[in-house]
């Protein structure tokens, strides 16, 4: 039996005196589309950093496809939050996408790399951006370039940290279409942090409601309920309106 795509086992992460994650445990089976929801400061990005091997938990451990996080890196595609990107960096979309192949910044791109990057950009609907400077791209365009970078190695698991932040609703809708298509074509596992409960409800096959600890994990219709949301967010606000829209 294959190990789960993502295995999080009693993970606790502490910064100073504060527990960012408390005894978080869950297994994500292969081929699932997971949405991680929770309020700001809930530890969602920290959870991803544990899975990527960027943060070593104080207690517990994580495994990706049965391997330690850093050993699993070649099979993992990661799309960071856009706010971490430095727009003064002189770079083209082609160069950024090629970093996904080389794991180094390219001084010169080979023909094979160029063709692979062009095909991957085409796949995410951004073929026309190949030679564009990153500094001149919109948030939606940048998102596609980062997505292409993460998909160029055909990863078995893709982690996306708030991929729809700063993009308009059409670009957001296209993004989910792309992810679902990629998943159908490759059988990949997708895990996405989002604040959009409606997107979690309609696109994910599994949802985890997190606020330092797990307040709910399972099917969207089971987990996006009053009890779980109130546990994580304190109150549910207009969540019902969003979820029933």
């Amino acid at each position, binding site marked *: 039996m294959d190990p789960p795509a993502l295995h999080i086992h009693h993970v606790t992460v502490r910064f100073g005196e504060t527990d960012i994650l408390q005894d978080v445990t869950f297994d994500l089976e292969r081929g699932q589309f997971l949405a991680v929801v929770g309020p700001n400061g809930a530890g969602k990005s920290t959870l991803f950093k544990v899975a990527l091997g960027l943060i070593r938990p104080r207690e517990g451990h994580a495994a990706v496809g049965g391997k330690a996080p*850093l050993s699993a890196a070649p099979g993992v595609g*990661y799309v960071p939050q856009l706010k971490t990107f430095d727009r003064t960096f002189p770079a*083209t979309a082609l160069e950024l996408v090629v970093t996904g192949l080389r794991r*180094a*910044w390219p001084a*010169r791109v080979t023909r094979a790399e160029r063709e692979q990057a062009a095909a991957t950009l085409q796949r995410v609907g951004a073929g026309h951006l190949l030679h564009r*400077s990153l500094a*001149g791209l919109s948030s939606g365009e940048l998102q596609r370039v980062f997505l292409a970078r993460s998909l160029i190695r055909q990863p078995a698991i893709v982690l996306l940290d708030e991929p729809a932040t700063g993009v308009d609703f059409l670009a957001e809708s296209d993004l989910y279409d792309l992810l679902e298509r990629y998943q159908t074509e490759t059988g990949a596992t997708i895990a996405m942090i989002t604040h959009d409960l409606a997107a979690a409800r309609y696109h994910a096959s599994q949802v985890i409601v997190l606020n330092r600890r797990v307040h709910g994990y399972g099917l969207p219709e089971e987990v996006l309920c009053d009890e779980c949301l109130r546990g994580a967010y304190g109150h549910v606000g207009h969540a019902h309106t969003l979820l029933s829209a």
Partner: protein
Amino acid sequence: MDLLDLFSLPFMRRALLAGLGIAVMAGPLGVFVVQQRLAFLGDGLAHAAFGGMGLGALLIFGFGLSAGTIIFHEPLWVALPFTLLTALGIAWVSGATRLSGDTAIGVFFAVSTALGVMCFSLIPPDTDVGVDVFDLLFGTILGVRRGDLLFVAGTCLLSLLFFVVAWGRLGYATFDSELARTDGLRVRALEYLLFAVAGVVVAVSALVVGIILIAAYLIIPAASAQMVSRSLIQMTLLSVAIGVATTLAGLVASFYLDVPSGSTVVLTQALVFVGAALVRGLTRRGGTPVI
């Protein structure tokens, strides 16, 4: 006197070779300094070199040695490890604390300058300790000696080797250190190596051409190149090219105008910077740089 005659003069030839060597090693280094927003690093390490020179000079005086005799034949042998340790100290402090890189640099800058002034003040005037404070601060590119050229050539080879091997990984880590770490790059180790190379390059260059000139070489060509480059490799090559061209132009201009050479090189670099800023400003409406 034509250009060939000009550079047949030994002091001009040595100045040109030293300037070109410094331009070649400071060009790629400056790219990462500018992109990592560590523009203060050149000044900070140059002043660390000043502190180290002061310490070296005091040791020569204290042990009753004269410059050019035995182990401490130059204060550089103290300044070099001192600047290297300062560079690693800055990297450690900015990584281990919440202080920004420039704040950490500022602390080491102030302490090193104070140490240098203290050490030099303890040495009686007219004592030969192998270094002159005024030359160290303001530079004597026309006073470069044959031995200095060996130091510059050695450091140039070392830094070029480092950048040939590590440029791609440094570029990736500079673009997004978190992304680079997810791909297994040892970003902290790369940062320490970059700072160590910066320490050696700045210490040697500060002794040869002065503190002010090396700070300019580290920032102005790279900042000018950034404004008109579309890729990191363009920025790197252009940074070196600007350093080389302004060295040549500055030395020639200073000779014919009979003005200080180091200042002329810096002012020539400033002209290129203004030109790049104008080009960038004029093309910005189009959304992409020109090259």
